[in-house]
């Protein structure tokens, strides 16, 4: 409780209310006011999330900060919230990224400022709702609601081909999640009229319905992650989205899919998860290997980073289905770390795009001489993206590779190719963009990053380094929950 208000509700509704407040400032005449309200609202959203961390009991394996009240009694639907060691770090990540997005869009967005800022704040609250919901219908509502602001962000503030990208994004993810709703309704019937996710965790199920439920969930979550082969919406969405949209998409929205596997697939249908784990591992490894090679040849920086995202998220799904502690925790660490690094990478591209209005690698070259401060930050994030030890990018990859070798040496072998491919596509891009002589005259006029941009980059740099040098605190939050989940998944439900 904070000021007598329940914490999780505050974390969800404060940004939404602030977002509505931003929308209320109206047209661009009041743009400056919209920006400031958005900043205050997003920072307040982060501040109210901090007690989640400080008051969290890492040794407790039940849900914490639970709120429970009836919502639609006729169908036994509840407003039921709670977090564990998996959901809480993701909520914090989301609350951490939102102010950065607001600051990143500060001067860059000059049209429909209030709507832009409002969309991000509302989305931040909705996403917190997804991570905190313990009622399937409540979860579903938040889940689908999160599509709307992103659809608008891409469709309104996006690039020239934004309509195609926005519709592709919307349909892909919407179609994916429809079967999830069917699965919920089935579970409602079988469980004797409950939409409680925690009830589902305990519900015994025969193998064949488990497999069907697993596939229904898989479609919803695999599209979000995204896993190969349902990843093709992501590069298009990123390319057209404005910088802030790309940041939130990569850093936050992709994590919804990963979270879904941990909250639904594994605990509700553990036998099916084991039964289909080979397929999941295969799909994840294809994402790691295939997508990395595709990333190598992208001429567009945003596409390259989008593919790199898919490849890195492959480590998360790989880790889930290895069923050991390194893998599961490594996957979680990878998701959080990817939140920082992909955000930073997209912001770096945004910085360049704001100056030259091009995302093509070929249009750059020799930035190091013109923008040394930027080049230094970009180098750090590029190295983190290549999984250099000492940065957060290494921790998750290292743990998942260790976990894979434990299960099967060749899984580890394929996963470890990221050491080579990840460095290849990232550093080759860096080389062509930042190093070399200045070829294009426009580059000579590019100015180094300003104070506002340095602030964002520095915050992310600290996050990336802190997590790489001292990941212990994050892991200690997760240990109990992950152990609990692993022992739960190990028990058959048949």
């Amino acid at each position, binding site marked *: 409780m904070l000021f007598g208000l329940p914490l999780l509700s505050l974390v969800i509704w404060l940004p939404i209310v602030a977002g509505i407040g931003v929308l209320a400032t109206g047209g661009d005449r009041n743009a400056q006011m919209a920006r400031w309200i958005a900043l205050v609202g997003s920072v307040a959203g982060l501040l109210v999330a901090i007690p989640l961390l400080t008051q969290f009991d890492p040794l407790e394996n039940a849900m914490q900060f639970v709120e429970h009240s009836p919502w639609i009694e006729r169908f036994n639907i509840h407003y039921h919230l709670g977090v564990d060691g998996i959901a809480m770090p993701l909520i914090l990540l989301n609350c951490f990224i939102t102010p950065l997005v607001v600051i990143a869009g500060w001067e860059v967005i000059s049209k429909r400022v209030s709507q832009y800022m409002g969309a991000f704040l509302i989305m931040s609250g909705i996403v917190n709702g997804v991570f905190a919901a313990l009622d399937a219908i409540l979860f579903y509502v938040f889940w689908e609601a999160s599509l709307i602001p992103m659809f608008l962000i891409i469709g309104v503030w996006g690039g020239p081909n934004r309509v195609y990208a926005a519709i592709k994004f919307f349909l*892909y993810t919407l179609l994916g999640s429809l079967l999830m709703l069917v699965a919920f309704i089935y579970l409602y019937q079988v469980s004797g009229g409950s939409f409680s996710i925690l009830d589902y965790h305990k519900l015994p199920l025969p193998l064949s319905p488990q497999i069907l439920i697993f596939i229904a969930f898989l479609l919803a979550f695999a599209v979000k992650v995204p896993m190969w*082969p349902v990843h093709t919406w992501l590069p298009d969405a990123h390319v057209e989205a404005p910088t802030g949209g790309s940041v939130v998409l990569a850093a936050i929205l992709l994590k919804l899919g990963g979270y879904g596997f941990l909250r639904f697939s594994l605990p509700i249908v553990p036998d099916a998860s084991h039964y289909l784990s080979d397929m999941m591992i295969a799909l994840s490894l294809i994402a790691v290997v295939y997508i990395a*090679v595709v990333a190598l040849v992208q001429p567009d920086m945003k596409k390259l980073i989008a593919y790199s995202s898919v490849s890195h998220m492959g480590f998360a799904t790989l880790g889930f289905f290895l069923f*050991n502690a390194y893998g599961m925790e490594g996957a979680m660490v990878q998701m959080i770390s990817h939140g920082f690094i992909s955000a930073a990478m997209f912001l770096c591209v945004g910085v360049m795009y704001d100056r030259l209005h091009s995302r093509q690698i070929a249009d750059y070259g020799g930035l190091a001489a013109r923008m040394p401060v930027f080049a230094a930050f970009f180098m750090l994030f590029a190295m983190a993206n290549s999984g250099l030890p000492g940065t957060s990018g290494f921790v998750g990859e290292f*743990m998942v590779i260790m976990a894979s070798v434990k299960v099967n040496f060749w899984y580890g072998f394929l996963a470890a*190719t990221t050491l*080579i491919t990840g460095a*290849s596509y990232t550093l080759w891009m860096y080389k062509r963009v930042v190093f070399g002589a200045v070829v294009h005259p426009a580059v000579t006029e590019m100015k180094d990053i300003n104070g506002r941009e340095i602030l964002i980059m520095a915050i992310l740099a600290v996050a990336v380094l802190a997590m790489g040098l001292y990941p*212990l605190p994050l892991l200690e939050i997760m240990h109990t929950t992950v152990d609990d989940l692993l022992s739960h998944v190990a028990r058959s439900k048949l």
Partner: protein
Amino acid sequence: MTEMQKLYLLAPLAPLAGALIAGLFGRVIGPAWSHRITIALMLVCVAASVAVFLDVLKGNIFNGSVYTWMTSGDTRFEVGFLIDQLSATMMVVVSFVSLMVHIYTIGYMHEDPGYQRFFSYISLFTFSMLMLVMSNNFLQLFFGWEAVGLVSYLLIGFWYTRPTAIYANLKAFLVNRVGDFGFLLGIGLVLMYFGTLDYAAVFAQAPQMATQAIEIIPGSQWELLTPICILLFVGAMGKSAQFPLHVWLPDSMEGPTPISALIHAATMVTAGIFMVARMSPLFELTETALSFMLVIGGITTLFMALVAIVQNDIKRVVAYSTLSQLGYMTIALGASAYSAGIFHLMTHAFFKAVLFLGAGSVIIAMHHEQDMRKMGGLKKYMPITYWTMFIAALASAGVPGFSGFFSKESIIEAVHFANIPGAGFAYFCAVTTVFITAFYTFRLLFMTFHGKPRMDHHTEEHLHESPWMVTLPLIALAIPSIGAGWLIEPMLFGDYFGSAIQIMSQHEAMEKMSAEFSGILGMMTHALSTLPFWLSIAGIFTAWYLYMVKTDLPGKIKQAAGPFSTLLDRKYFIDEFYSWLFAGGARALGRGLWKFGDVKVIDGFFVNGTARMVAATAMLVRRFQSGYIYHYAFTMIVGVFILMSLWLYGP
């Protein structure tokens, strides 16, 4: 925390502080204060390292953790130090050479706009390298391993506007990553079977694990430690530039000369050698891995030395010489003569640093001309550079009395005594290369310093000895280039390394050598009657004859050799082959997967195909809703007709 533990922390953290100050505040404090602060902190580092070294000599060994990096499952991953004879020796070598290079840099880089950045990088490098050698576990070793790789990348590409430099640094990083790929998998197997990454715990369990079988390729059984050690050694092949992962090292010469000396000759490239010596309790248990190292080391020694003969760029000669000398060290490891490998690592660090820094001194004098064909007769202009390089050349050629003689001779003896497969081949390579080493080293010396000056008049007028910041490190490093060899008795045959290096009794090379060893003078007089000595004299003589007496002969030989000399000139076409296969292949594959897999199949067929199918179905269904009453009436009549028929004649 005891006083000694504070020193352990101080040694790596002092250069780190220097790196941060010069890197973050370099523009504020200016060039002079940047080098003052970093050098002062390097002095602290050297002092701490020496103090630690002296403490270790008294027998105080430390193994403990600094902090817990993370925990997962039942495993604790820690950052900690193992301070014993091996790490203390490395600490002294690394910090001393690094300090010399810091001082040298003042003279070499004083006009460079990236002056502060350079100091920041080399201090950062020293920190990383110290963390690597002081580590007490595999994880931190990997941290240091990658961190030195990062700094190497940054420094090779230091002049980032040069296309060759940024090509070379990317290549260096990626080739190293190939090695790290194997290294990390090796670490993965260690973690899986031993359940810990702590050296002491792993080494203690190793003998029991040695007989355990593992099936990596289905159907073939391996002893567990064989794949582990080979994979770890793949990491060493990357970092220590062993064939076939050697291709990055010659190109790394694109970086400024001080770092060629520090990173790409004296310290970082020897990390692989150090790592294997550190893992001696594991490698000793697998003869296959030892044989593998002998063969790889042999190939690297001989074939890289051959390439050095035809190089005309002064730095590249030294670079190929480094590759060849690293091959010697690998041979020593394969022959279970770890202490000889480390001993050669140490002497090589000194004499190779002199050769590089001396080459740098020449390059400054020549206004950044590196082609030896345009030098000659520099001796009278640059006496200090000449004499220090002369000492280093004698050490490199293995002339008795100089440090390289003792270390190289003991490697050759060790491999001679070794009794595992591959030793014969490695012995042949090691002995043949003695001649080649002497030849190319003195070829460099004669072409650069003797004979008639071949530079243009303008350059010749401005020739002069380099300032004291350059010559002081040369002298300071030339002294151990002679003297370090005289430590052979304690280091190789005494109990110097204690339990830091373990050798199984059936690998008796070191034991036999030690039985034959009859003191330093005995070793030198004995050498006069052995083949390597005469080969090295012959090498020097041949170089003198070809480059001082019959100077037109090399060209003729080159022409007569035809394809063989082309092969050497083009470095066996390995670069071309890799660039075609890996760089070209990966891009072609990527394009194929992207254009065909993603764009055509997934998006074209499935995603947009679904959309098209929906559209097509809609088109079809739309025809039924034409809006004309008579269409609907007609359809209705047909329907009624069918229904009635079914009702009347149906079952």
